[in-house]
């Protein structure tokens, strides 16, 4: 007679050794992006190409700025996690580590830079 449950015996198996957190994270961010991306495209698109004064006034308004900030954060976190899967498919060993670390650094650097710019435009 086995006292372990099926779930307990399965936990930690599989090539990844972990559960479904990554997949769930991608699902959550993709649902958010399905809403954010159209909002960003149709708030950012029309103002691109406008003169400097119009652009700064436009992004001092809450709605376009918040949409841009959310899209950058969620989009780049989604990129960070998605790109990792591609790297794990094609690179091995030290190169894999370097590429994953580089991707994470690039993603957070872009988030920080974008948010700094948006805050400065808003204030």
């Amino acid at each position, binding site marked *: 007679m086995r006292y372990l449950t099926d779930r307990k015996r399965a936990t930690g198996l599989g090539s990844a050794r972990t559960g479904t957190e990554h997949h769930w994270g991608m*699902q959550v961010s*993709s*649902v958010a*992006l*399905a809403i954010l*991306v*159209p909002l960003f*495209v*149709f708030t*950012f*698109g*029309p103002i*691109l*190409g406008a003169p*400097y004064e119009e*652009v*700064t006034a436009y*992004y001092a308004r809450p709605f376009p700025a918040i949409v*841009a900030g959310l899209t*950058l954060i969620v*989009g*780049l976190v989604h*990129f960070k996690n*998605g*790109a990792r899967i*591609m790297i794990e498919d094609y690179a091995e060993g030290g190169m894999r580590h370097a590429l994953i670390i580089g991707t994470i650094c*690039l993603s957070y650097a*872009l988030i920080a*830079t*974008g948010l*700094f*710019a*948006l805050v*400065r*435009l808003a204030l």
Partner: protein
Amino acid sequence: MADVNRGNRPLSPHLQIYRWQIPMLTSILTRITGNALIVSAVLVVWWFLAAATGPDAFATADWVLTSWVGDVVLSLSVLGLWYHFLAGIRHLIYDSGRGLDLPTAEKLGWACLIGSVVLTAITLIIV
């Protein structure tokens, strides 16, 4: 003893082996578009930083993004973005266990391909 065959396992057949088909093509395109969009993200963040820095920096970034090279890159970004958007929605449909039979999967693949072109055309007309 579990690791006797480590390092000498057979690899799965790769792109050159399989016959091209819609579910495979659209899946590969999802990966390519999703990862290529980092180029667009860098450009857009640079544009925002320039706008926050001052008129001179803005003029440079704005000139690059609205030049014909910028137009081509951003138009392709929009196409990639809408493609990845539709393919992501298809992924959520697949994840719910629906649409996995071959006829439906092929239809969804075509919907992603055609839909992304249509959405891109609409976006470029409006914007």
